[in-house]
């Protein structure tokens, strides 16, 4: 059952097209993350769904009801903002109950809903305080509570954790996930943080210039990016790209990059490669093996430029095939700068894109 459905949605500000004939179906109870860098239209899309921006064309359905021209309050949504957007002059309790009072809900029912939200979010001791007396994490919890008391089917999050420090961010991330698991509401979550996207989402929609580049579950997005943009956007450090040409020799396929020939016979989409085709080979840092080649496996030599020990992981920056390349290995394996290593590649999890269309092959 679809919960939110966006049909051919376009939005123009004057001559600028922010969203271009966008389609999106979100299932009931699904956690969908809109991911993209700033200016890609993800927040704009969320604001359109919320009814805070008027669309230029297209339709929006929430629970199979056309809400394209409905007021935000009539859409059955609750929204959480990046800056918390708590009413500064009201106590936490008044912040939570404001919308319910506006909607003229009976006081007893208001009290019940506020108490329930406060219990779920564990903010009961804060109810009498003003927002200025709360920490960032507490404020965001209250902001989530304000969406919660509305008793709605769809929660919209607009970069809710971006104003918090790293530690709080990961705490609240877990809390939002827990909230989703217990409430089972539909949640649409906008972020530019890929970690948030990968950890929270049932599905991620990666956006660029108002167009959804790929819509899939996090693992598919990570392991099989649809195009070069998604591949480069997801993952930190980002995927290593090698521009080269497909060669065939003795029944095996290679991607030749300068003096190096990558054996891509094991690549799942190998059948789609044509000899002489210009391609981009993408290898994630953790898909490169250092001094771990199986017997008989082809290896390549490279020299370590920089070592970045990160605790659990160790990141090596090497010069290989005439360019810089990052490799992720286990934290306890150390290679001081200048070490020579033997690299081998797991082509089963590599990505190859056509250099022209930039789409996955």
């Amino acid at each position: 059952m679809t919960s939110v459905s966006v049909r051919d949605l376009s939005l123009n500000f004057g001559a600028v097209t922010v969203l271009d004939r966008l389609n999106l179906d979100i299932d009931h109870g699904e956690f969908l993350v809109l991911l993209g860098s700033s200016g890609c239209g993800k927040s704009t899309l969320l604001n359109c769904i919320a009814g805070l921006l008027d669309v230029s064309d297209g339709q929006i359905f929430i629970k199979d009801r056309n809400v394209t021209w409905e007021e935000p309050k009539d859409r059955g949504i609750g929204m959480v903002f990046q800056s918390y957007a708590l009413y500064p002059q009201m106590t936490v309790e008044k912040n939570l109950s404001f919308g319910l009072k506006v909607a003229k809900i009976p006081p007893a029912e208001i009290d019940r809903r506020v108490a329930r939200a406060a219990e779920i979010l564990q903010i009961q001791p804060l109810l009498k305080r003003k927002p200025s007396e709360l920490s960032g994490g507490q404020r965001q919890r209250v902001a989530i509570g304000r969406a919660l008391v509305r008793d709605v089917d769809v929660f919209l999050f607009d970069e809710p954790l971006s104003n918090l420090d790293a530690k709080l961010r990961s705490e609240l991330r877990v809390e939002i996930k827990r909230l989703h698991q217990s409430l089972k509401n539909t949640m649409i979550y906008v972020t530019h943080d890929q970690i948030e996207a990968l950890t929270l989402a049932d599905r991620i929609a990666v956006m660029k210039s108002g167009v959804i580049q790929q819509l899939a579950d996090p693992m598919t997005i990570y392991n099989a990016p649809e195009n070069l943009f998604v591949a480069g956007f997801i993952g930190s450090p980002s995927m290593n790209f090698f521009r080269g040409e497909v060669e065939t020799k003795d029944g095996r396929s290679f991607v030749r990059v300068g003096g190096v020939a990558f054996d891509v016979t094991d690549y799942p989409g190998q059948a789609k490669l044509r000899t002489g085709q210009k391609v981009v080979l993408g290898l994630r840092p953790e898909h490169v093996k250092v001094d771990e080649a199986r017997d008989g496996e082809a290896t390549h030599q490279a020299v370590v430029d920089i070592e970045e020990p990160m605790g659990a992981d160790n990141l090596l920056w090497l010069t290989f095939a005439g360019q810089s390349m990052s490799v992720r290995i286990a934290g306890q394996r150390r290679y001081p700068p200048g070490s020579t290593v033997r690299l081998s590649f797991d082509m089963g999890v590599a990505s190859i894109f056509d250099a022209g269309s930039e789409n996955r092959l």
Partner: protein
Amino acid sequence: MDSIADNNMVVGYETAPASLMAGARGRKPRRTLSRRNIIVYGTLTLVALYYLLPLYVMIVTSLKGMPEIRVGNIFAPPLEITFEPWVKAWSEACTGLNCDGLSRGFWNSVRITVPSVIISIAIASVNGYALANWRFKGADLFFTILIVGAFIPYQVMIYPIVIVLRELGVYGTLTGLIIVHTIFGMPILTLLFRNYFAGLPEELFKAARVDGAGFWTIYFKIMLPMSLPIFVVAMILQVTGIWNDFLFGVVFTRPEYYPMTVQLNNIVNSVQGVKEYNVNMAATILTGLVPLTVYFVSGRLFVRGIAAGAVKG
């Protein structure tokens, strides 16, 4: 835990090299009579005295009798303090046929200023709020027109306004003058409020809309409580501006409704009889007292308002 921490601190302290222990410590000493301080405070004092001198002369003169003024030493303090000129300025000085002093003008000014300030601020704040948050079609054009209005010289508009007021049947009345003040305050006040509301986090407005609040609910429940500082600023601007207005007061009212400034002018510039400098000084100070009080009283409120409004939500 505490004792361990304490021990660690003591150990660290004792093992620090001697070179780190010696030398400067504690608060940085400050010299109060440095050359820089003397220059800065000296200049400030001089400038302050320069600006205070006219006020001093006015107060001193207003407390002297006419014989003493004729002696001619304007800086000398009064030998014999008299409040006669103040009483005369307030309740006896003649303008035209009326001899009831500035009091008439004072009450006229109050009756002009209070409604003008309230009405202009009420309308301008809603204007600013609508322009900043609701971005209706043509909002930018409307705003531009309003701002251009602020740059058109008053003199150009005086005659057309006289005609408009006459047609409306309010020419020469307090109502007419209040309308004129309200309209002329609109561009700058709208700009002031628009910029203030535009500076408030947009997400607050969005959150209120998701909560189901409409135009007026958001204005009264969300925006107003956050806007005390800007209301105080607007009030200071309007009270002083309207109280000090002379041109509109002369042009748009009849003598019985003349505001205090116009009456002051008439008292000071009356050509008949002796020039009563002491009465003139007292009358001038009396007229300036209201803006002065507003500055002093709301100045403090203003600072408090900013401090209260500075808390981020």
